[in-house]
């Protein structure tokens, strides 16, 4: 199946792209995507613990199962746009 993966802020910068399509096995979970990104870039794993993931605009876990056409995003720590 195909899913869209989006990268924001520091993830966008680290990976040098803002989104991509990924072809995944039928039993894929969010973890499948994270593992694939680690192959390209091992150090990204350090950031997984402070990052959140979303599937179709809802926060998800590594175990969340994926379906054809899902929109997955890596969500670095958010700031809500203000520090006041």
């Amino acid at each position, binding site marked *: 199946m195909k899913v869209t993966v*989006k990268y924001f802020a520091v993830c966008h910068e680290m990976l040098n792209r803002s989104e991509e399509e990924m072809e995944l096995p039928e039993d894929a979970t969010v973890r499948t995507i994270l593992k694939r990104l680690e192959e390209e870039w091992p150090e990204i794993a350090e950031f997984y613990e402070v990052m959140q993931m979303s599937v179709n605009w809802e926060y998800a876990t590594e175990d969340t199962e994926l379906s054809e056409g899902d929109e997955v995003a890596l969500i670095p720590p958010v700031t809500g*746009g203000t520090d006041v």
Partner: protein
Amino acid sequence: MFKITSDVITGEEVREAVEAPDAGAVVLFFGTVRNNTDGRAVSFLEYEAYPPMAEKKMAEISEEIAKKWGIDRVAMIHRVGKLEIGEVSVAVAVASPHRKDGFEACQYAMNRLKQIVPIWKREVWADGETEWVKPDAVFFEELPEKK
């Protein structure tokens, strides 16, 4: 109204969105770009959002407020792109029959916005350096090298 925009925020829009003849108290919050962060001079800021999810999360915060205070008049707008010093990055408006509830709900909205709404801020310092703002200074101190 829950909106990510690249336009200038005037405040009128959120205020008008919550106005109602039975809600006598309107509390507004504006976050504006400061000229410094912890004393270091800021040149300008860049905001990035994940718009559909951000707007969905704003609507969820509004539902939380409806449950906690029975207030259903909440509006939130956040700007993205390049913002100069003094410009408004975020505006929240809450209208309620009583001001105490309005103050509490507006403060709650901002606290939750910072926790769950996917928006990121990049500071461009006066010396030209840039940095993604992090809620906890320990993380992202340095980016890992790309393989």
